[in-house]
């Protein structure tokens, strides 16, 4: 084939997943369930999928390798860095310590799912406005955390914001601008 294939496009098309409809997936593997043991049903960003994966596959690997949603990053893979932060049923979690199969019947939202069409989520916009990143590797996790922090509204002072964001490590040290971005968003919620 003469067409050039981008890495992202290739990963995306190679992902072995089928979209089975929108939202409302059946609850996960119950005591006696009809889903074959190597298939997992997931609802991600409002779409229902059925993927080829055994029960050992983490949500992070399911997102990146089966669904081609590579915006969620794998940093430590040990629950320590927050790069893999996504929302499950509205709460931020680390997807590297979450089993995909345990998310059946729940609503997963990733960085790919928070913008409204072409208009960025206010937290995404604030990160752009405030230069809340350098290399960008930690950024999707930072933003998913910040979305919860802004929505909860409990963190007021800079120190409280830093504590509320302490589960997201940034090796580039973009912390001051991340705090600024969160402060900028407060009026939006």
């Amino acid at each position, binding site marked *: 084939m003469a067409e050039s294939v981008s890495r992202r496009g290739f990963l995306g098309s190679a992902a072995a997943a089928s979209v089975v409809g929108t939202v409302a997936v059946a*609850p*996960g*593997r*119950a*005591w006696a369930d009809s889903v074959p*043991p190597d298939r997992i049903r997931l609802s991600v960003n409002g779409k229902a999928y059925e993927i080829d994966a*055994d*029960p*050992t596959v*983490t949500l992070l690997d399911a997102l990146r390798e089966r669904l081609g949603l590579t915006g969620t990053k794998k940093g430590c*893979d*040990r*629950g320590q860095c*927050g790069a893999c*932060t996504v929302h499950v049923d509205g*709460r*931020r*979690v*680390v997807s590297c*310590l*979450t*089993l995909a*199969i*345990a998310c059946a019947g729940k609503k997963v939202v990733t960085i790919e799912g928070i913008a409204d069409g072409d208009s960025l989520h206010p937290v995404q916009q604030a990160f752009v406005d405030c230069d809340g990143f350098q290399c960008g590797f930690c950024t999707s996790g930072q933003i998913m*955390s910040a979305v*919860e922090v802004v929505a909860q509204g*409990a963190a007021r002072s800079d120190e409280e914001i*830093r*504590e*509320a*964001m*302490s*589960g997201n490590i940034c090796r580039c040290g973009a912390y001051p601008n991340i705090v600024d971005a969160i402060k900028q968003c407060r009026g939006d919620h």
Partner: protein
Amino acid sequence: MKTYDFVSAGSIRQALSREDASYLAGGTTLVDLMKLEVMTPAHVVDINSLPLRGIHCAPQGLRIGALERMADVAVHHEVAQRWSMVSTALALSASPQLRNMASIGGNLLQRTRCDYFRDVRMPCNKRKPGSGCPAVNGDNRMHAILGGSSACVATHASDLAVALVALDASIRLQDRHGERVIKLADFYRLPGDTPSVENQLRPGELITEVIVPACDWPQAYVKVRDRTSYEFPGLGGCGGRRALGRGAGRPHRGRRRGHPAVAVAGRGEGSAGQAGDRGELPGGGPHGGG
């Protein structure tokens, strides 16, 4: 990861029917250690649909369902007012994401953070009985200063357990044969010659709830660590009645008066002023008298 079969239990009875299974709550210990192949269960039972929820504050005490999440208990208003040690210990634990995931029952059963334990290429008496303990003469800056043995000097990593032992809390356990309630201080075992046996949980037994008596003395939980947030404790201590954890193989309670480094506030049986006069912290024997 070693493969396993996975089911989600719809009832407590269903969950208890698999004695050889590992229960999945928040998964922040279990999934981590399965990935490292430190834990290799053949069956995993997801218990998150079980009705083990609820935070009940009453004049006589507090009851917390085993599946309540650390984050929810940490911000619970009445818990913060009446059992501030519990909320502080939780708020200082792990990260916000992990606190959203991790359950109270799972927290009490988390495994040690000893790096040798977590590395299956290394010997470790706790992981593989009889293989030896490289930490005794190895990298042991974060290991036990109390309650270790020549077989194992690992510490207990739970902040919450330290607070709960100080508060004289109990846990309710359930298995196929029935229920029992046991003091958390008696639940944990010191490593001794059998560091692989960490507590009194029986195969297939569930923690269903945590029971904390009312507490009317001032409390504080203090955590000493390498960074100001998101770090396991080097040392955790509670005032009021004293308990010391993470520096230790299991959470300890000061037996007579507190140790100066540990009794940070409150009165208990002695006043904070007296604390340390006859300060004594138990060494290797059985502890828990308050």
